């Protein structure tokens, strides 16, 4: 597979590999996702708007240039913007591969960071020279203004052109909460929403703080995803309950939706309304309570997202799917092609 290198959310030739619970494979145009779902299904998307979370600046004690990537936050409350978990790089920008970025100067609690119009202090080191918690000075309004004026979307070297905000906001973007775009949602536009409705497929949203996908350091990557806050509206919980009761499938648009729905899962397969924090990892051996299928980007087996797919399908099916993606030249990464993966059926006890 090769990386999609152009920031086009819905390329006309985007493809979707549909992998059934039994392992059958078929290719469809991704724009026809609505037709690949069944009447009575519920498609759930992440409506988080993407924060321009890359902040270039200076480590004041050493005057060394740094790049901060905001990466975590305790809650989605708009006023809760003073403290963040942040990834720190030394000199350079997105055009350099993350793996090749130099580390920041040694950081200590109390160090001041100057990030354009923003001022922040390092509060704690989080077990790695690149991962810290920071606190911004100023009121929430001043902090949001600084981020809006100075921040840029987090970007990786496989996309050469600088990303604009409209490249990373999905058509569903609402509360600013994501650090990187919830890119599975790129597939949706308003025309598709109308087709879903016409086909009798339900549509609902939740908000989940989609985190960074790569740190450039294997030890840190192994800690991803970090804890991510989410918010489930009452209407979405009702839609999940109604779908489950009538035998439809809950289809998660992306790994972040899966994390939120499973994080909020109750024993009966419905979900708790309101704010929560997704912790831990979903992977092989995780029993999914809510999500019956996932639509997600095509990933290399080495990618951290891939592990989550093991909760949906066994190694044999995933290996077949990966080989098919490879053979047909599917494109990977956030602007790439997609996969619709049904969860293997757990035999029901009578």
């Amino acid at each position, binding site marked *: 597979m090769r990386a999609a290198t152009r920031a086009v959310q819905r390329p006309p030739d985007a493809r979707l590999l549909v992998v059934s619970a039994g392992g059958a494979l078929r290719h469809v145009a991704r724009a026809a996702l609505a037709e690949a779902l069944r009447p009575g299904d*519920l498609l759930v998307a992440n409506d988080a708007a993407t924060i321009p979370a890359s902040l270039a600046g200076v480590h004041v004690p050493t005057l060394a240039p740094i790049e901060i990537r905001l990466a975590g936050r305790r809650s989605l409350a708009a006023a809760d913007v003073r403290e963040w978990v942040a990834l720190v790089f030394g000199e350079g920008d997105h055009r350099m591969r993350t793996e090749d970025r130099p580390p920041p100067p040694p950081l200590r609690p109390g160090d001041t960071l100057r990030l354009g119009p923003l001022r922040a202090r390092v509060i704690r080191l989080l077990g790695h020279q690149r991962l810290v918690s920071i606190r911004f000075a100023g009121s929430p309004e001043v902090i949001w203004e600084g981020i809006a004026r100075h921040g840029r979307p987090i970007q990786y070297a496989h996309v050469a052109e600088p990303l604009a905000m409209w490249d990373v906001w*999905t058509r569903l973007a609402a509360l600013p909460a994501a650090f990187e775009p919830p890119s599975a949602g790129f597939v949706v536009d308003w025309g598709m929403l109308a087709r879903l409705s016409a086909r009798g497929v*339900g549509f609902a949203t939740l908000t989940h703080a989609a985190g960074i996908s790569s740190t450039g350091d294997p030890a840190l990557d192994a800690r991803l995803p970090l804890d991510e806050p989410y918010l489930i509206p009452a209407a979405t919980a009702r839609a999940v309950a109604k779908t489950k009761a009538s035998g439809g499938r809950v289809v998660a648009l992306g790994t972040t939706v899966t994390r939120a729905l499973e994080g909020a899962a109750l024993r009966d397969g419905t979900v708790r309304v309101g704010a929560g924090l997704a912790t831990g990892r979903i992977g092989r051996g995780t029993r999914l309570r809510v999500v019956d299928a996932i639509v997600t980007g095509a990933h290399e087996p080495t990618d951290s997202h891939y592990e989550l797919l093991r909760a949906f399908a066994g190694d044999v099916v995933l290996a077949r799917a990966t080989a098919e993606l490879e053979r047909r030249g599917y494109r990977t990464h956030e602007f790439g092609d997609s996969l619709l993966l049904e969860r293997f059926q757990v035999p029901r006890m009578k």
Partner: protein
Amino acid sequence: MTHPSLTGLRVALSGGTSGLGLALVRALAARGASVAFFARSTDRVAAVARDNPGTHGIASDVSKKDDTHRLAMRILAALSGLDVLVNNASSLGPVPLAPLADTACEDLEVALATNLVGPFRLTKALLGALGAAAREGRPALVINVTSDAAVTAYPLWGAYGVSKAALSHLSRIWDEELAAHGIRVLAVDPGDMDTPLHALAVPDADRATLKRPEEAAREIVALIEEEAVRARGDTSRPATA
């Protein structure tokens, strides 16, 4: 008749430092709405925010494409989402008013950028949030402020009239397209008001014959209240599943 309260309703509006916009900021805040307003002048935005505690003032130029999503993000952060967007800020085009044949292309472009393309872009950037509001059973409403110059071919009002006619038509088409998603888009003509914009256009107007912007603001607030009641009571909305 007693109006229902707007407590908890999240409203964003362009303009807000003079004329109808300022009257709307005051009227909406007085009825308990959460208000974010945005205009070009940093100083005037700060002054209005200071005079109307609890409102959020944002300095931004709606005609600039690069600012659209950054402005949208600040609105959504300030209000934790959005129920109502009022595209109120307007550009007159050439001042003093000029016949179309004497209107510089650049003046026509400025009127279109401020009165049509800017509201189009910002509405688009905020549609995700409005859709989310609709799915949660909240009102989801866009009000585009137009003018009778959008309908009647007044000589000298070319750039303005053309841009407002386009904004009106945009509102009608969008309203048709978004109805199924629970979002309404309405064009509202507030009438000839005693505002700085009108004074620029018709410096020697008899101000006593002009409508007070406060009166137009009351009418728009009443319209918002009506839509809010309708959204709460309408259980046939497509909402979620």
